């Protein structure tokens, strides 16, 4: 209770909080706490938020809890930004698969949390510029490295034990982040495996599949034969059965013809 009160105070007043959390800093033996005024204010605000919202799994100084959640030391602003912007964190329970939802925190709070996690070191938020990438290279790389799980049109799929998310909402920055993190059960790709330019190309390809031209008409999900078969049966076969039903029955019990003056029996 006292802690929470303190945190509320900290949230309200950055300067006061700074002194409070400087103590934590030393305790957690983190190298060189950032001491410049504005970022450290942000870091402090993030720390407070972290302790109230994330620490139950990741530990009070983000060092991780064995068997529950990994340490966040060294994952960098990149990972924090990815998980928080896509609403994957916080998780309802530590065993659940992080899936994309609307972010749990306001943009300013996310900024603070990202600054806090980033303060432990690790990669910064990458700059991804799809316009600098090549669409064809993106298609080739996506086919080689990503389509096995995400499907070639980024519509999501499964791997034994986990759901693979669709990429319909992934922003270029989130693509660049996910490639380096390997969230949940996804593999990750280092600079030596996917260069920044190649990530630009991947992001460009993912943008293109988010805005498909669907030249053939109604796209029906772009996952191939399952929806196509459903349309063939539920639409075409149903329509043809209806047509057959209308055409096939000219039974004498049900005269279809209106009575005509002078008409036969």
């Amino acid at each position, binding site marked *: 209770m006292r802690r929470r009160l303190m945190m509320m105070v900290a949230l309200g007043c950055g300067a006061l909080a700074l002194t409070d959390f400087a103590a934590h800093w030393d305790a957690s033996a983190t190298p060189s706490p950032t001491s410049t005024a504005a970022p450290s204010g942000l870091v402090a605000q993030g720390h407070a938020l972290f302790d109230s919202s994330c620490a139950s799994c990741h530990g009070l100084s983000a060092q991780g809890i064995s068997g529950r959640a990994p340490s966040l030391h060294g994952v960098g602003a990149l990972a924090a930004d990815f998980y928080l912007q896509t609403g994957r964190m916080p998780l309802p329970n530590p065993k659940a698969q992080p899936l994309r939802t609307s972010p749990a925190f306001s943009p300013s709070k996310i900024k603070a949390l990202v600054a806090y996690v980033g303060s432990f070191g690790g990669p910064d938020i990458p700059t991804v510029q799809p316009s600098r990438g090549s669409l064809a290279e993106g298609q080739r790389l996506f086919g080689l490295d990503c389509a096995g*799980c995400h499907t070639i049109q980024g519509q999501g799929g499964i791997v034994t034990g986990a759901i693979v998310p669709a990429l319909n909402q992934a922003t270029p920055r989130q693509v660049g982040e996910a490639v380096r993190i390997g969230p949940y*059960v996804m593999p990750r790709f280092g600079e030596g495996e996917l260069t920044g330019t190649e990530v630009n190309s991947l992001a460009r390809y993912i943008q293109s599949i988010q805005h498909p031209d669907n030249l053939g008409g109604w796209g029906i999900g772009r996952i191939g034969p399952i929806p196509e078969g459903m349309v063939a049966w539920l639409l075409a076969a149903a329509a043809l059965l209806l047509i057959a039903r209308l055409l096939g029955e000219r039974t004498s019990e049900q005269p279809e013809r209106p009575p005509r003056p002078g008409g036969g029996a």
Partner: protein
Amino acid sequence: MSRVWKTIVMFVLWRTGGLRARGQQPEVDPSERHTGAPAWAELLVVAVLLLVPVAALAFVALFVLDPNTQLLGLALGTTLALLACALVLAGRWLVPQETKVEQRPRLADPDAAREVTEQAAEGVEGITRRRLLAGAAGVAGAGLTAAVVIPVAALGPGLEEQLRRTPWRAGRALVDEQGNPMLAADIIERSFQTAFPQGAGTAAEGGGQEDLGSPVVVVRVDPATLRLPAERADWAPQGILAYSKICTHAACAISLFRDPLSPSTESKGPALVCPCHYSTFDVLDGGSVEFGPAGRPLPQLPLTIDSAGVLRAAGLMSGPVGPSWWGDPS
């Protein structure tokens, strides 16, 4: 319970019109014929028929001016739909409505059948060694079949070689899709790469990227977690492992690498998964089947790292690449 059934049954009947009385009236003559069409029906059919060329011309115009798939489909589909309407309306309203009775042919003619049998028997009249002749004809047929089929077996001797062939040899470097040598330092933990043998020739020569024996997946895990069999202890330098990328079940490309990041993740450890039937292979213990239909472990390629830090094959694949077949050594 039976009441429930009854209700369902009655509902189905009601929906399908099955409740329509179909009493037994054996001697009814169902033939009937009505002629004469209302004037408005004739005009309606004429009107629909006249719309057909309009829609057809629209299709032609679109085809020439702007062949947009959706508009073309709409125009041609409308043309055909109008034609269908005209034909159905004409069939329903204009022409005589008739119910006719046709006698069904009897088909069987026992007398003729008997005669045919006798005539067939007469064809072999006076021949005493019928069985011997039939046997000889059978031998002739079998010989002809064998003459046609055996050339297929000519594929046989080289077949095992052809189906098991892989361009991997000790010392052959791993390259990526673009042909760049793969550096051990570039492979980070939890990563997933596709590699090919360097300088192994084209697919036609049995070595290009399109050859099933070529592609391998390269992953890196924490060496402490490895559970490789003792004889493969040095196959994974620095925890870098290579497995054939072709599934041993049905030849799809193993293009999924599942590697849990968090300790609380419910799925088991790192595994390679096939996207076709979800065969799941454990990468830590040498590619054993964890789940799915594959009947054989994924072949592993022993690796070594040369002085320049390039990954190289240290030997042959641990087993035949790709799906099994009869006689495949297992």
